[in-house]
């Protein structure tokens, strides 16, 4: 079983939402800026709860923020 790949478009969505800063997003969902950076670089996959909270900020369904891309070989 390979590593699961989940991509996200948080960075693009932040800019679409009035150039929201990483710190502003972090404050709104209750995480640190470091975690936002890790999420945007796809170095960390959030819990389901955090994923829903982020999607709620952008008022989008979860799958428009996070996309399942399959597994690595």
């Amino acid at each position, binding site marked *: 079983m390979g590593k699961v790949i989940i991509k996200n478009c948080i960075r693009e969505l932040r800019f679409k939402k009035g150039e929201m800063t990483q710190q502003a997003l972090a404050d709104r969902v*209750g*995480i*640190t*800026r*470091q*975690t936002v*950076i*890790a999420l945007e*670089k796809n*170095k*960390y996959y*959030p*819990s389901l709860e*955090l994923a829903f909270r982020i999607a709620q900020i952008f008022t989008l369904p979860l799958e428009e923020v996070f996309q399942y891309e399959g597994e690595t070989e």
Partner: protein
Amino acid sequence: MGFQEKSAWACLLGIALVFTVYFAIVFRSPTAFVGLFVLAVIVQVILLAVFHTVNAIMSHSIRKTGDAPPRDELDRMIELRAAKISGVILGMVVISWCIIAMFGAPVQEIALAKALDGAELSTTQFAIPLANVLLAVHMLFAGFVMANLVYYGSIVVSYRKLANG
């Protein structure tokens, strides 16, 4: 560098600095630990208090909200992973120490019996010199300190990996 990572760095360097000096002394003279242990703990507490005060003053988040930044799920995951690794290290140290003590004590008894011209030595008469007992205790404590270093080291490595890729 985030607040939690800076705290981990402070703990790692503080423990390494204070307890390297502490063990360098007590491994040479195992009985000279009483005052030294208290001093090491006090120095450790002062170092961490100074660092955390400076860290808090310099932290943007604390200046803004007055509170330390909350630990989020990523911080907790990093801490759990570090605790798991250091727990394994501590377990290995304790088991190794027990095995060495179980086999080491009879070896010392035989050595003592030989020193007493091969006299019959019952287990009730056998006594390990205080310095040797204290040395063994210091070794066990060193294992505990090492596990702590591994804990904070793992946290620092995890944050560095996230930052550098």
